[in-house]
């Protein structure tokens, strides 16, 4: 029973509707968000820095958005900075913090045995927007970097993070939930461990009033499903992104706790308290605030709905022989299912799915720029073979039970067909 795919996957007719299961890549724009944004393209198009009426209207829109986002995060209005998206927010934190403290450490820390470099701790499964700039800084000998491992489910151990802290540690960056395998990280636990460490340091009179190391988390994937309360999480910096929560692309925000210092990336007109120069993207900022409000208001109901659909999908996929689940069985985002089909290659499976109207993604090397498969799946200890065969389905607003059942109907045939073509027949004892 193998499916006969349509001859061209890329130009299907209306008869075969799109089943979009790649919401972790990006989400469509919510109509309500678009409506909120609309006035700021051609009517209230002023520059928020201008003193005239149109400028003031734009400024009000930005300020109002900032207040609304701050409220959702349990933060202060002046702690929200608008950026061009998740990557910029992550870069601001992981490049900006070590660079701000580099000079101070060079002159102060001449203790023997220390490198005098700012020390940063991160995890092996971070997004490239965190890992790559940190590796770049390390290569330039600007920081000392510790990358902590994860367990087989992709979970970071808060004790391991706490144990890695040194007197020179300026920043810890661990994502709230992983974009590839959906694993939810114990951010509040790490935050509490950090508070304990700081209190201890202060009690020892080592550093009066210091708040180092800072704690950053990338919440891009988590925003639609988890509570984002910076006080409960004990984070100092938090990355938000519009395009994963039915908001516009090209906009994000960085929460920066009062008193937290970092060196700006964008230098110019002094917008955003001189921490992020550049004319504010007013419609996108308005859209981000609206999207975040909608996401948080609907969070619990949508999480429950998607958890049920996700579990149905995972259960059905795991019924296919030689299939394993990537990520944590329960501590995962409600919308995320990631499995590896052993003996087949992911890109081929994604294109066969696409021919059936199903949009998914893969951690296979063949679909990436490098020749290595997903660093996230490899970090969980899975072999290269299994990483090459990984497929991610991420559910969203549009996902229905009917769609999940359709995927479950066609997937066994696709896997069967590709396995028929494959010379590989790995023993499952290596994957238990």
């Amino acid at each position, binding site marked *: 029973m193998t499916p006969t795919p349509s001859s061209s996957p890329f130009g299907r007719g209306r008869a075969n509707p799109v089943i979009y299961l790649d919401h972790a890549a990006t989400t469509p724009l919510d109509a309500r968000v678009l409506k909120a944004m609309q006035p700021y393209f051609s009517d209230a198009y002023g520059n928020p820095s201008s003193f005239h009426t149109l400028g003031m209207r734009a400024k009000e829109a930005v300020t109002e958005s900032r207040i609304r986002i701050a409220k959702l995060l349990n933060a202060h209005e002046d702690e929200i900075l608008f950026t061009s998206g998740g990557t910029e927010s992550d870069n601001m934190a992981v490049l900006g913090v070590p660079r701000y403290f580099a000079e101070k450490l060079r002159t102060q820390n001449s203790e023997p045995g220390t490198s005098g470099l700012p020390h940063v701790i991160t995890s092996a499964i971070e997004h490239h927007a965190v890992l790559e700039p940190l590796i770049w800084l390390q290569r330039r000998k600007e920081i000392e970097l510790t990358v902590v491992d994860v367990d087989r489910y992709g979970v970071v151990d808060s004790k391991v993070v706490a144990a890695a802290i040194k007197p020179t540690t300026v920043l810890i960056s661990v994502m709230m939930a992983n974009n590839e395998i959906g694993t939810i990280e114990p951010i509040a636990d790490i935050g509490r461990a950090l508070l304990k460490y700081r209190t201890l340091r202060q009690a020892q009179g080592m550093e009066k009033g210091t708040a180092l190391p800072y704690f950053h988390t990338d919440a891009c994937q988590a925003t639609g499903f988890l509570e984002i309360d910076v006080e409960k999480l004990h984070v100092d910096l938090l990355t938000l992104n519009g395009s994963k929560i039915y908001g516009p692309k090209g906009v994000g925000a960085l929460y920066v706790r009062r008193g937290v210092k970092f060196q700006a990336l964008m230098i110019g007109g002094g917008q955003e308290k001189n921490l992020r120069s550049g004319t504010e993207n007013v419609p996108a900022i308005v859209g981000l605030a609206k999207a975040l409000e909608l996401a948080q208001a609907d969070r619990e109901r949508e999480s429950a709905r998607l958890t049920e659909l996700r579990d149905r999908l995972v259960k059905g996929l795991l019924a296919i022989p030689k299939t394993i689940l990537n990520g944590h069985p329960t501590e995962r985002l409600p919308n995320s299912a990631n499995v590896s089909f052993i003996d087949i290659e992911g890109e081929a499976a994604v*294109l066969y799915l696409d021919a059936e109207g199903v949009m998914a993604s893969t951690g296979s090397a*063949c679909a990436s720029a490098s020749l290595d498969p997903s660093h996230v799946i490899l970090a969980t200890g899975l072999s290269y*073979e299994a990483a090459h065969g990984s497929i991610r389905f991420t559910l969203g607003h549009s996902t229905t039970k009917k769609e999940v059942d359709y995927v479950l109907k066609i997937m066994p045939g696709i896997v069967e067909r590709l396995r028929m073509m494959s010379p590989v027949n790995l023993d499952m004892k290596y994957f238990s």
Partner: protein
Amino acid sequence: MDPITKPTSEARKGDIVAPTKEKGWFYTDTVKEHFFHPKNFLDGEEGYGDAYMGMVGSPACGDAMKVWLRVEKGADGVERITEFKWKTFGCASAIASTSMLSVMVTENGGLPIEEALKLRPQDIMGRLGGLPARKVHCSVLGDKALRSAVNDYYRKSGQHEKIKVEAGRIIDKVLKITDHDIEEAVLEGADTLEKMRQRTKVGTGDPSCIPEVEQLIRFYKEKYFG
């Protein structure tokens, strides 16, 4: 027109563009046809125990291939490949390349072995209407698997003098990449280790060969461009 990096306008139809690459990547209609409707793949190995078999690659590297041949000697004394069956673990490029190779060696009554051995990855890519530059490495296993199966035929038919392990010296033991392959890749512009790995995947399964690969890149760069 170079089919590898400069696709024809025909090839651009149905483009998939990778988000982060300078060059777009896409599959031609011919690639898609061979990917979705692969020719000559072997479903089950029953009945092919006596065929001539060749194998190359490993799934850890992302590509692995196994081929089975049948050869007939005609009245003219020419040995032709009458059947070419295969199994491939790999992406769309790898599957389509193998499928196209199977068509090329068996069409028109079968290609004489001597001619089949002269087929190069570029010839397969040409027939496919080109492959995205970053997918070229997915197509290089076919001719190696073919060579390996032909050797099996020579061995079983007692023509030991014709067996060639490889056209050159094997550098990467897992992917069976030779110094000759490195030379060709340098000529095609892979003048750094990074570019070489993108093109040939050398060292993915056999990292111990990397220092030697670097040396060879330097050597051929100086030879041709120095």
